[in-house]
């Protein structure tokens, strides 16, 4: 059976490699799934297993997994990934716990691994469930929750986790209760770790939790001395870390700053003032005339497009513009939305071909030649204060330079500030026009204007 495990691990690697190009990505996912199937079959063939509960578990799990995968809206993808992640972590916790239950006199290395699997699995589980609840807006607000002494509480929890770990590892046979305490602490720790993180920082947290779920699987691999588990787990662990780093870089913040600062809570509001003046608004009707005359339009989507479910209306407008002879491109900021690549998936859902999507670094030099930049539900990622205002909390974050375009239309509900709580001087620029209202309705109105002529 070891041979099947080697093939499975190879298929995971090949599958991930194929994910690096849109042409091969879908087949790559199938290759990876075949690897998983092989790993499962190989395990079932090991012998000495009673299949009843395994089969029931497969049926229940497959039903829940398949139904949620088919029913989830593309805009809700971040919370879907978060909750699946949490379940993976929980499974690793349970596997570690079960192994201890069966072999309390296991060698020290196994005991250490069991504790790690339980700890990381627990943090992943509750952290992901809370991230899910925040993203799905099941809890009051996606905003960060901060309270006095939060760091101290976290420190105490972490110290307790380490202390229980040491006690447990020294005398595993007689300390079943300590393992349970470890489980409880890890579950609480997961909640407290995600509590102070809000809104636009979610991409980082999801990447990090993704990495944790991989590490939990790796720990389970150490517990079972199973090489294939270790390989698969570390691939995921590495993947999560790479993505975390990319996200942090795109916000010009350190991971520590994202995790502990409670960015976007009251602290950010005081700074970044000074952008004053009158914002000029425009009706969709007048915006249409400008779009109709434009030779080149760049559309910059943000989380607001997802909230308004406006991706299809965006595509419709884009098509009409193209039919009118206008060059249409979509500029995607790496942290737009609530998970890495969120906007790409939404636009793909609306049938926007991916070769029309341009990354931030590629579009910025071309901005001055763009007639109209259409900002849809994005705010912080187009805030010129990040480039110019040293006192701004988001100073240094790379942005899409829409303010360099000839004209900027900002589709927005109101003048409220973005997630970072920072005023956006873009709204007051000479070449900026605000088109207030629900993004989807505004776009629809523009589409209707096009169709009427």
């Amino acid at each position, binding site marked *: 059976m070891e041979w099947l495990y080697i093939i499975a691990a190879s298929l995971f690697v090949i599958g991930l490699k194929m994910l*690096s190009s849109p042409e091969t990505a879908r087949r790559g996912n199938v290759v990876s799934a075949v690897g998983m199937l092989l790993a499962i079959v190989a395990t079932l063939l090991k012998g000495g297993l009673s299949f009843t509960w395994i089969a029931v578990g497969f049926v229940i799990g497959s039903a829940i997994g398949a139904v949620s995968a088919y029913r989830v809206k593309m805009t809700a993808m971040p919370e879907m990934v978060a909750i699946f*992640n949490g379940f*993976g972590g929980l499974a690793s916790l349970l596997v570690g716990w079960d192994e201890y239950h069966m072999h309390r006199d296991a060698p020290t290395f196994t005991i250490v691994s069991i504790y790690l699997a339980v700890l990381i699995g627990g943090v992943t589980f509750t952290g992901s469930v809370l991230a899910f609840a925040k993203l799905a807006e099941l809890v009051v607000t996606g905003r960060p929750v901060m309270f006095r002494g939060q760091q101290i509480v976290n420190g105490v929890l972490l110290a307790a986790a380490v202390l229980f770990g040491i006690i447990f590892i020294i005398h595993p046979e007689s300390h079943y209760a300590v393992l349970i305490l470890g489980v409880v602490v890890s579950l609480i720790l997961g909640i407290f770790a995600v509590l102070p993180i809000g809104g636009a920082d979610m991409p980082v947290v999801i990447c990090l939790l993704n990495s944790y779920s991989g590490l939990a699987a790796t720990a389970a691999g150490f517990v079972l001395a199973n090489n294939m588990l270790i390989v698969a787990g570390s691939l995921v662990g590495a993947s999560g870390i790479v993505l975390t780093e990319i996200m942090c870089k795109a916000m010009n913040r350190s991971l520590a700053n994202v995790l502990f600062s409670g960015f976007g809570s009251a602290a950010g509001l005081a700074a970044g003032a000074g952008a004053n003046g009158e914002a000029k608004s425009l009706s969709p009707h007048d915006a249409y005339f400008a779009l109709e005359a434009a030779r080149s339009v760049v559309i910059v989507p943000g989380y607001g497009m997802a909230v308004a479910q406006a991706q299809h209306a965006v595509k419709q407008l884009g098509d009409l513009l193209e039919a009118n002879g206008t060059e249409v491109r979509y500029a995607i900021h790496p942290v737009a939305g609530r998970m890495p690549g969120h906007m790409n998936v939404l636009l793909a859902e609306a049938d926007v071909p991916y070769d029309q999507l341009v*990354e931030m670094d590629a579009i910025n030099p071309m901005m001055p030649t763009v007639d109209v930049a259409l900002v849809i539900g994005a705010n912080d990622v187009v805030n010129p204060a990040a480039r110019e205002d040293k006192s701004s909390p988001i100073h240094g974050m790379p942005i899409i330079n829409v303010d360099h375009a000839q004209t900027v239309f900002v589709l927005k509900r109101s003048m409220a500030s973005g997630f970072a709580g920072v005023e956006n001087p873009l709204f007051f620029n000479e070449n900026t026009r605000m088109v207030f209202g629900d993004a989807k309705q505004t776009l629809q109105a523009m589409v209707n204007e096009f169709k009427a002529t």
Partner: protein
Amino acid sequence: MIAILIFIFVLAAFLGFELISKVPSQLHTPLMSGSNAISGITIVGAIVAAGVAGGEFATALGFLAVIFATINVVGGYLVTDRMLAMFKKKKK
């Protein structure tokens, strides 16, 4: 034995860094949900835990682990496939 396990962990982690760094940002969401599905590999441990005779409690732990790991695996792969099916190149 322990050294070999850790050796494999370190090499696989480096391989992971290399592989993932090459994935373009437009595919980051499917990458996350796809790698997420792979982290459901812990299902291998869950199967053994649920199938080996070791008393009711151990079976219950294993059974739950199988359910959650299966959701992770099946849901992860299906949702990734659904997303990737939508990525299309411009028709010429």
